[in-house]
C-alpha cells in the first residue's frame, strides 16, 4: 500500500493540486477570520469561533473535497489509465490508495486551518486559554463529516468518467448542507445528507442575542452533543466505502 501511495504522489506531480488546495484553505481562513474584534468578541472569542465555524466549514470543506476527488480521478480517466491499472494491480487497491491519498490531503487542510485558528486566537488576544477539549471535539466533528462527504465524491468521480456528475452532486450537496443549518425545523435534512452533519454536530449555542442589545448580552455555551448523529454518520461512511469499492471493482472498463 505504501508503494501505491507513493505512486499516487508521483501522479500528482506538476498538477498544482497542492497549490490549489492550499489556496482554497487560505481563502477559507481569510473568510473565517475577517471581522472586527471588539471587547465582547475578544471575551467570547474561543467559543464564538466554535459557534461560527461549522457554517464556514460546511461550505469550504465539501468544496475542497470536490476539487481533490475529481482532480485525482480525472488523472486516470483522461489517459484511460484504469484499463491498464486493472490489469497490473487489484482494482480494490487502486480505489483504496486513491481514497487514502485524497483523505490525507483534505485532513491535512483541516488540520492546517484548525491550528491556524488557535494561533489566530492567541495573536488577536482572545481571553483565557484555548478550551482544548472543546477544540479537539470540534476537530473530530469537522473531519468526520468531511471524510464521509469525500467517500461519496470519491466513488462518484471514479465511477463516472464525466466529472460533472461528482461536481454537481458536490455543489448541490453543499447547498443542502448550508440550507439545513438555516432550517432547524427540518432536522431530517441534516441526517440524511452527509453534508448536513457539520450542522448536526455543532455543539455550541449562542444565547441572549436580541435586535436591540445585539452582541452586548450574548453568551455562548456547550449544548448537548448529538452522539446518535455521530454514530449514523460513521455508519454512513462505512456503507459508502463498501458500496463504492464494490461498484468500482465490478465496473467493466
Amino acid at each position, binding site marked *: 500500500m505504501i508503494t501505491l501511495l507513493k*505512486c499516487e504522489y508521483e501522479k500528482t506531480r*506538476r498538477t498544482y493540486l497542492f497549490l490549489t488546495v492550499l489556496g482554497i484553505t487560505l481563502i477559507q481562513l481569510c473568510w473565517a477570520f475577517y471581522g472586527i474584534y471588539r471587547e465582547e468578541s475578544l471575551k467570547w472569542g474561543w467559543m464564538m469561533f466554535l459557534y461560527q465555524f461549522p457554517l464556514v466549514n460546511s461550505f469550504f470543506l465539501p468544496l475542497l473535497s470536490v476539487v481533490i476527488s475529481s482532480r485525482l480521478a480525472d488523472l486516470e480517466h*483522461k*489517459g484511460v*489509465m484504469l484499463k*491498464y491499472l486493472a490489469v497490473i*494491480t487489484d482494482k480494490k487497491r487502486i480505489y483504496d490508495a486513491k481514497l487514502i491519498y485524497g483523505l490525507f490531503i483534505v485532513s491535512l487542510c483541516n488540520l492546517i486551518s484548525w491550528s491556524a485558528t488557535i494561533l489566530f486566537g492567541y495573536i488577536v488576544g482572545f481571553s483565557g486559554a484555548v478550551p482544548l477539549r472543546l477544540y479537539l471535539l470540534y476537530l473530530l466533528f469537522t473531519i468526520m463529516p468531511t471524510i464521509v462527504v469525500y467517500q461519496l465524491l470519491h466513488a462518484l468521480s471514479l465511477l463516472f468518467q464525466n466529472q460533472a456528475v461528482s461536481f454537481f452532486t458536490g455543489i448541490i450537496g453543499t447547498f443542502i448542507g448550508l440550507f439545513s443549518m438555516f432550517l432547524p425545523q427540518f432536522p431530517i435534512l441534516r441526517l440524511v445528507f452527509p453534508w448536513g452533519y457539520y450542522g448536526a454536530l455543532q455543539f455550541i449555542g449562542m444565547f441572549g442575542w436580541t435586535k436591540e442589545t445585539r452582541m452586548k448580552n450574548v453568551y455562548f455555551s456547550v449544548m448537548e452533543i448529538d452522539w446518535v448523529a455521530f454514530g449514523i454518520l460513521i455508519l454512513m461512511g462505512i456503507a459508502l466505502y463498501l458500496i463504492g469499492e464494490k461498484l468500482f471493482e465490478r465496473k467493466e472498463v
Partner: protein
Amino acid sequence: MNEIVTTTNLTKKYGDQTCVDHLSLRIRENRIYGFLGPNGAGKSTTLKMLLGLVRPTEGTIDLFSERCTPKNRIKLLKQIGSLIESPSYYGHLNAKENLKIFATLLQVPDSNIEKVLQIVRLDKHQKKAVSKFSLGMKQRLGLASALLSFPKLLILDEPTNGLDPAGIQEMRELIKSLPSQYGMTVIVSSHLLSEIDQMAEDVGIIANGRLMYQGELNQLHETDSSKSLEQIFLDLTGKEQSL
C-alpha cells in the same frame, strides 16, 4: 506445443446482443497469433475478457494451463502485457515518469524502463509531456508499457493504429522479433488481413462474434489456391454477415 491461452465457449452478451459467441481459441506458445475480424466483430471484447476487464457471460479461460478465477487473476495477469484499443498514460507526465509509475506497480527493476524506451525508440523524447505526443508516439508508449515487465504473453489490440507506413513497418518487425528474442507469445488483433499476413503464424478469424477459422496461416493459403487470401477472408467474414 503448449497452449498459453485456451478459451472454451467464451461468450459475451450485452442485453440481447451477442458480441462474442462461443469462442474456443487455442493460442500456442512462442508464436504470433493474428486475431482477425471486421470492425465490430468482437475482437476487443474478447481480448478484454482474457484480461479480466470484461466479465464473460459464459465460458472459461485458461491462461498458462491454469483456469482463470477471480482469485488467481492478478497472479496470472502479472505475466501478461497488454495494449487494448488505445494507449494508457498520464498526460501531464513525460514518458519516463509514466513508465516509472508502472514499473513500481509491476515491481520490475527500473532498468527495464530504459530498455523498453529503446525498443520502441522513444528514448529521444524523454522530457516531453505525453499529452504533447503525436498519436504514433503515444502508441509507442503504450507498447512500451505493455513490454515493461517482459511478459510471457503480450496482447496487442490494433497496435498499428495511428502509425504511418514507416511506423507500421517498424512495429511489424518489432513484433515479429519478440518470440525469438524474448520468448514471448503475442496475440495481435487487426481488421486488416494484409497486416496479419505479414506478421502472424497462426490466425483466428471472427465475424459477428463467431470463430470462422482457426489454424496456421499457411494452411489458410492452401484451402483454395484459386482464390487470393483477401477473397478467402471476405468469403469467411461475408458469409457470416449476410446471415
